[in-house]
């Protein structure tokens, strides 16, 4: 197994994408999951459905619409380009945005069941003690659902590493910018560099195994 500096760069980029995506998902996922878990709104099933859709839709659906929406000639892409000089096609921020949408259910669903697993009386008790919802969230709910937080973080991270279709469609395969490990494997296989593809693949297997293991380890530890 030979590890070139290009491979290291690609792997680091992959980890960078997964980390950025996970951080944003954590920040966005907590309020979304909170709303879904506790809101009496009638819109809730629609929101839940929308968030779950990346689980079943082919990534190409998302990739296709991102390509259409985010290209600088399109409405959204044009506005972003002229207002912030931001391009979401062929750029790292674009991959982050796509990954956030694509991995959303992997963060929101564990958090949602985490919120629901906490007895309602705990949040109510906190309210009777004069605490705001935000204080309750921070001090009572989140500390009470650490396993759910861990699941959400790990699953989003791992799922982003495993992302392929969306990146293939809107990434542009730029080394150091949008060429992540999954794309690199595809490329290497296509030019018959099986050894390089194997190196990437083995590293991904190792990385994902070692980040997923703690989640399930913890689960079985709690059962026994």
């Amino acid at each position, binding site marked *: 197994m030979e590890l070139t500096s290009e491979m290291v760069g690609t792997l680091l980029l992959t980890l960078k994408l997964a980390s950025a995506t996970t951080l944003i998902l954590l920040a966005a996922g907590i309020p979304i999951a909170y709303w879904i878990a506790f809101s009496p709104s009638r819109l809730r099933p629609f929101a839940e459905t929308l968030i779950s859709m990346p689980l079943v839709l082919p990534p190409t659906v998302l990739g296709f619409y991102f*390509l259409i929406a985010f290209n600088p000639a399109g409405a959204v892409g044009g506005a972003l380009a002229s207002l912030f000089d931001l391009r979401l096609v062929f750029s790292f921020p674009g991959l982050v945005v796509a990954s956030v949408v694509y991995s959303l259910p992997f963060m929101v669903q564990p958090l949602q069941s985490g919120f629901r697993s906490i007895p309602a009386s705990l949040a109510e008790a906190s309210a009777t003690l004069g605490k705001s919802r935000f204080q309750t969230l921070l001090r009572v709910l989140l500390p009470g659902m650490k396993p759910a937080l861990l699941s959400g973080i790990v699953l989003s991270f791992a799922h982003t590493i495993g992302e392929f279709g969306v990146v293939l469609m809107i990434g542009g395969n730029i080394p150091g910018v949008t060429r992540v490990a999954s794309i690199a494997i595809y490329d290497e296989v296509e030019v018959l560099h099986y050894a390089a593809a194997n190196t990437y693949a083995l590293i991904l297997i190792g990385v994902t195994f070692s980040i997923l293991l703690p989640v399930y380890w913890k689960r079985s530890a709690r059962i026994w």
Partner: protein
Amino acid sequence: MIPTGTTYRISPPRRLVFLFFLLIFTGLALRAQTVAVAANAQYLIPDLTDAFKRATGKTIRSVVGSSGALSSQIRNGAPFDVLLSADTAYPMGLWRDGIALDTPRVYAFGTLILWSKTGISVKGGLSALLDPAVKKIAVANPRNAPYGAAAIAALQAGGLYDAVSSKIVYGESVAQVNQYVDSRAAEIGFTSSSAVVSAAGGDAREWVRVDTSLYPPIPQAALVVRRGSPGDAARAREFFQFLFTPEARSIFLRYGYRLP
């Protein structure tokens, strides 16, 4: 006691299963020949197969992909009978490894095109890339797509590579380059003539041929895959040979290819 004979009786459910497999196998045996087509040639393949059908009455199915992906699939037993590659290297590799029935043969030379749909004037050739409106340049992956390699060669020969390399985004094949250019995600891109000639190409003001002196020729070879029965091989060869008839050659010309 030694049984003198055994009667094999197929029970009704087994008979159904048997029938099912029989149908599948006969279906396979009677199937149309399949041609694996490099992305750049996908636009002319309907014309080509129509012409073949008119000439022989036989139907050809096509599968489109990058030459690299298709070759890799053929190596791993994909049910393709003929490969129309975008280069000669992949077909030669298959031939060397005994996967091709005959030596590959060049059916056409590709023509590199510079194409934009965002109103950038391309008539001046490669200098269009220096237009400040150009933020992204779509190029097929030079590692596996001949048109990508030709584009990079042209940029280097034209002395523009260093100036524009940071703007290059790589498509998996010319098909993805076309998709980037057509959706305007990239302002400009290097593609094959067939793409712009076909309906996807559209307006003639949007594209220009890249000076052929700037890049090495793009010979595109075809081959017959070694697989199936002698009958299959004969049918595959029939289509392969059709590629070199005047009728097929006129189609290649019409889509901007040059002929060997």
